[in-house]
């Protein structure tokens, strides 16, 4: 039988105080993962595919106004609402703690899309097409999804698998923050992010940079009004989906409405 041993539990920390909304992660993801080109019509139909997206929220209006950015990708929930509703077990949690999508099982029921509170699952309403010459740049490690298939962020599982193959099976080492960064095994968005707002790692590993945040979240349950020691929070935490993506609150020295004190 295939063992179901947990080798890693991959997770990400997103520091909202650093994210500038620059779109480097968005384009890096599209380039890495063979996403169909979002033509103008895709935006007009509200069917643009972005495995990682930047949401922009306004607060206030001129002159006391803020625009805030947040990158949102699959949260790789440990208690994923998308998984139990799939009629064909196309989506499940794998032994790296990833929420994965088996494309050749997917029958396009779209229950998972409906049940995902983060809206990070995408349906291919059309067969993706590229000009023939663009097919030259398609990543051979990533399946091109056909019409009728649901797709989503994989934390660049192809890079993690390469890492496991090269570092763990061939060299007998273990993937860690350092060799993942040096040898291009980090997810494409994390590698690209110019402000280092995204940090990725294995939170089973006590030495990884993301570990303190996961420890904090695991130790302090906001549902029991326990206060955290870091800026950590989970997206839509009240749903108890147990995401493997932690957000760090944006630091706000001059909140709107405090002009009297800060000018």
């Amino acid at each position: 039988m295939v063992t179901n041993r947990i080798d890693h539990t991959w997770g990400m920390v997103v520091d909202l105080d650093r994210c500038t909304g620059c779109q480097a992660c968005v384009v890096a993801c599209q380039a890495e993962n063979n996403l169909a080109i979002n033509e103008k019509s895709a935006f007009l139909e509200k069917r643009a595919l972005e495995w990682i997206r930047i949401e922009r929220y306004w607060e206030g209006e001129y002159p006391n106004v803020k625009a805030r950015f947040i990158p949102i990708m699959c949260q790789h929930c440990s208690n994923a609402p998308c998984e139990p509703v799939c009629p064909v077990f196309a989506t499940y949690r794998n032994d790296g703690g990833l929420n994965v999508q088996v494309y050749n099982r997917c029958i396009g029921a779209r229950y998972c899309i409906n049940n995902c509170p983060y809206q990070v699952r995408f349906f291919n309403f059309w067969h993706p097409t590229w000009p023939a010459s663009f097919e030259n740049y398609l990543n051979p490690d990533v399946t091109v999804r056909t019409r009728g298939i649901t797709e989503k962020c994989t934390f660049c599982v192809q890079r993690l698998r390469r890492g496991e193959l090269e570092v763990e099976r061939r060299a007998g080492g273990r993937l860690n923050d350092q060799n993942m960064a040096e040898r291009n095994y980090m997810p494409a968005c994390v590698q690209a992010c110019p402000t280092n707002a995204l940090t990725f790692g294995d939170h089973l590993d006590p030495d990884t940079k993301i570990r303190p945040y996961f420890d904090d979240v695991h130790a302090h349950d906001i549902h029991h009004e326990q206060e955290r020691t870091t800026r950590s929070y989970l997206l839509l935490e009240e749903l108890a989906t147990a995401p493997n993506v932690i957000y760090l609150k944006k630091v706000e020295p001059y909140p709107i409405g405090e002009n009297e004190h800060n000018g």
Partner: protein
Amino acid sequence: MKLTRRNFLAWAGLSAIGAVACDAFGDDLKTQSPVNQPEDLVKGRDNWYATLCRHCPSSEGVLVRVMEGRAKKVQGNPKYPINLGKQSARCDAGLQALYHPDRLAGPLLRINGTLQPVGWNIALDKLKEQLETRGEDLVLVTEPLSGPLGTIAGRFAQAFGGSHITFEALSNATYQAAVKNVFDQELLPDLDIGNANFLLSFGADFLSTWISPTRWSIGFGDLRDAEVGSGRGTFVQIDPRFSMTAANADKWLPIKPGMEGHLALSLAHVIVQEKLQADDVDLQALTGGQEAGFLADFSPESIGPKLGWPEAMLGGRSAAESIRELARDFASHRPSLAIGGDSAGAQKNGLFNLEAIYALNYLVGSVGATGGLRFNPKSPLPEWPQPPVVAALAQWQQVVSALNEGKTKLLLVHQADPVYGLPQAVGLEDAIKRTDVFTVSFSPFLDETSALADLILPDRIYLEDWGADTPNPGPGFQVVGIQQPVVNPLSSLDPRSFGDILLSTAQELREDARLPWNNLLEALEESSNALFALDRGSIDAGSEKEFWTKLLRQGGWWDEKTTGPAVKPTEGLYSQIAKGASEPAALGSSEFYLIPFAHNTLLDGRNTHLPWAQSAPDPITTVTWQTWVEVNARRASDMGWREGDVIRIEANGSFIQALLYPNPALPPDVVAVPMGQGRRNGPGYAVGGEERESSNILSILDAALVNETGALAWAGNRVRLAPTGESLRVSKFEGEYAAREIGNQIINNPGEEIIKTVAPGGH
């Protein structure tokens, strides 16, 4: 054995048993088990090559993943000192230029009025013939070049008695002039944003497009890191437009366009008056010995009311008090850094603005210090032009005159689209269309300039060609970046290297041209040997050949031990600066200040043919594929204008159209329009939009010049807006994800629910 249905089923059954039996191997098979994805079924090996990205003015070091002769992914080179393994969206998108379906396959010659494919022999003969017959006073136009290509282009033009001129729609000429006047430096300084404790930026959209945005973004990440330097730094942006950078500031202060320099001098006045300057500042030199009445004309009381600061922002205090507060914050939270650029330098008084802004760094001791400005040493390769020559608009006006007068009869254009990027008022398009002017383009794609050319000799894409760059600004030490071909052109294409064409042509026609190299590679190898002879820096090698190999593997050479010069102010610097002060003219009724801006991914239009760049939503408006005009949301609503209304933007006797985007943050008297769209000639993805939703704001700008530098004052225009009565849907990302239901409740304020905030030091 004949394959019958029965046989087939039997074999299928056997193989199923085989699959179960093989499970004994455990882990080795798990990736091929049907419940796991087949990610590692691809057995080929990939190679990662180091080279330079050429899709921004700041060449970033990149690694390109190549598999089976095809480039697959471009990403930052972790060793390259400028971008330290990071990259912008533009670098990734650049891959699409390589495999673009509409690359020109080979040379095109205008025959009977239309461009027709010809062979390279015919095309090169035509080039030589034109050089011989009308080469005198030729003008060779390129992008700013700081590698060997810059040397080659300069000497080539000289050999034929012509001139080499560079083009960039948003040139750095004014910024360079300010750095020269304030710091007496030719090279631009590095900005140590990461170690600053207070960053004050005037107009520079440095997180998006200004100068070296990836490098500044890395610094910005560190600025926001409580563990770096003296804790989380504060960032204040002063900007007439609510840019992406302004959105990321802790505090954004709008300002009347053109008043940036006055505010900076007012801050200096307060710092000196209240004795807030750093301890070792040579006030005697800065003030010229006139400390008592220092910048008296720029007191907060006289400047405050002119800045256009709304009362609602000031919270019951006067503008003068707010200036004082800002000056105290800036001076007391050292290391503090003042920077300026983009619209602040693109006014008629742009040079004054930038000088006044950068001089602030002297007062807080940030010149040549940690958390301040770091100056750069000269290039180790003096043969290469550094900094690259940047032509001002005034020079372009001279070129157009020379074309019209019949003095210049041959125009050679490489990696530049001046017909698109210059205001129509300059008249380049008409000059090129003259029958006595022969234009040669080296563009791999059609664009507005090459579409008018008489001969097109398509260049290689940067991933197929050699090159080098000495970054300006450097990181505070000497850096030479190397660009190498990582793939060959597809067999369906036959481009030739621009540098190689210049070299071979010059050798044939002008033996005295001081261009001894047979191709660009030879020139690069010679420079590599010169670096090897220095015997220092990042590469340790025993021979020239070993050095060359390591140079290519690293993506360049650098020497972190080199440092820039020490910089001191000239005597009476502030009185010099104050002399240039001039206030912008008042806004007419029903007029708006127009602030055009470089698009986050399309920049000045150079990336419009890349679908990844087109489809990356603008950070603030989330609009894609279209041209929009941002108008204050409340003012638009008062006038009855709605999102998607087609608006006529009129200036200087001409107009363009764009779709309205009501922006809640823009000042009511400012409109902002991105550059980039509105191409009429070009490859797929760049063209095809209707005029109503795809237009070029640069075309209607007044050809006004920045005082003294002669650069285009592109942010100094006023416009009138008129709705056309038509409306189109805006192709934006915003609204694709609606507010969602949680439990039984719809989130009322998704911004606050989704993006949580905390006071400094809290959790």
